[in-house]
């Protein structure tokens, strides 16, 4: 049986796994942006908090993914459900690029522009939402793009704790020494990653401030 036949025969299972995978990644990214962007703003505005925040995110990044899932397993509530556990772990990985790019984007806003904004009587909040964030949006999106691609890859590990997704095929294929099964997980994951990368690149370019 060749690969094409295998894919068409198992198309509904592959689609199912792909959708699970997208749900894990989508939920993770929503959470990571909701946490990462505000943390990035804090890092940019309160330099004394930048070391602890970036340091923690850095440490999370260095823990091997399988080990992180293992650490989180005994945590009450989190460990109760596989998808909860996975999304939490994935979020921890996704945070660093988002925090860092948000902080970099805001720090990169021309000081003259910020000075002018303050001098015009804009409040700190108005400067953030009307000047700093719009001007750093493409840098922030670049961080989201890196984090998304990273997450799509790491999310295959989720199958190890039973959260489903494309990792199911990969783990099963490894266990059965079946390359077609491994590819049934790996190819859609790669396509997802490339697709997300392309879509977010387009957004990033469209939102890049003119200069």
């Amino acid at each position, binding site marked *: 049986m060749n690969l094409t036949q295998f894919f068409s025969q198992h198309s509904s299972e592959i689609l199912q796994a792909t959708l699970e995978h997208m749900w894990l990644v989508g939920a993770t990214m929503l959470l990571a942006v909701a946490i990462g962007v505000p943390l990035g703003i804090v890092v940019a505005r309160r330099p004394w908090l930048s070391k602890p925040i970036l340091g923690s995110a850095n440490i999370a990044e260095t823990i091997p993914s399988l080990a992180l899932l293992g650490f989180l397993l005994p945590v009450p509530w989190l460990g109760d459900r596989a998808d909860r556990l996975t999304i939490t772990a994935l979020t921890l990985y996704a945070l660093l690029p988002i925090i860092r790019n948000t902080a970099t984007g805001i720090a990169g806003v021309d000081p003259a*522009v910020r*000075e002018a904004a303050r001098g015009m009587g804009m*409040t700190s909040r*108005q400067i953030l939402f009307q000047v700093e964030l*719009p001007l750093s949006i493409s840098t922030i999106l670049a961080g989201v793009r890196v984090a998304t691609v990273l997450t799509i890859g790491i999310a295959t590990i989720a199958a190890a704790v039973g959260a489903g997704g494309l990792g199911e095929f990969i783990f099963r294929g490894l266990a059965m020494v079946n390359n077609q099964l491994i590819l049934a997980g790996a190819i859609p994951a790669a396509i997802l990653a490339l697709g997300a990368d392309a879509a977010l690149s387009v957004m990033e370019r469209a939102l890049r*401030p003119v200069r």
Partner: protein
Amino acid sequence: MSDAANSRPISEAIIEFRGAGYRLPDGQALLSNISFVVQRGETLVLLGRSGAGKTTALRLINRLVDPTEGEVLIDGRRTLDWDPVELRRQVGYVIQEAGLFPHYTVEKNISLVPRLAGWPELQIRTRVQDLLQLVGLDPAIFLRRYPHELSGGQRQRVGVARALAVNPPILLMDEPFGALDPLTRAEVRAEFQEVQRQLQKTIVMVTHDTSEALLLGSRIALMEAGDLKGVYSPQEFLHSKEPVAAAYADQLRKLEGFERGQ
């Protein structure tokens, strides 16, 4: 402090520095014990070399920094007693390179403060048109442009229009013409003089260009290393015995000598 600053009636004062100074948190003094008065409707030029404290003095006026000694009064009220946002709406601010918002069109740049102040849309629209005309830019051409589509001189004009948007009685200008080439500078400067003739704002302007100071200033406040050396009328400045002022005047005379071929 010069006699010129003291001889006018206090009632006209709109800005007053009373022994004001500013020290960085690390103790370095950028400005110490400065006292002078700016009269309503005059153009006071802060002249001095880089690092003399001119910009710091300017930033004390709109509370971008607060004095660490003495006080600054605007309309007889200490800046510390003003709400910063309310104060800054009374004080237009023009900086070198204009500091326009690169993601906003000329129209949005100019209309931002009136919008924040809650002006009605129709009034904002006419105001923006009037201001562009005032600074010599055709609204039909420039309203929809972005700052990166403008020349340096045009950007600076938009910067002036933006600072004038809510019609503040005071205008602060930090080297407004510093980034322009000499010919454009002369042009924008002349236009600015015309605007000033029409509007009669109180202006405090920072420059390190002596001829600009003499040309635009009704009085010149000479600063050096965080100190105020004196406040002079242009005539007094040219004939002052104060060593720093004399050095500036001397520099200018050399240029004139060069022009006459001496």
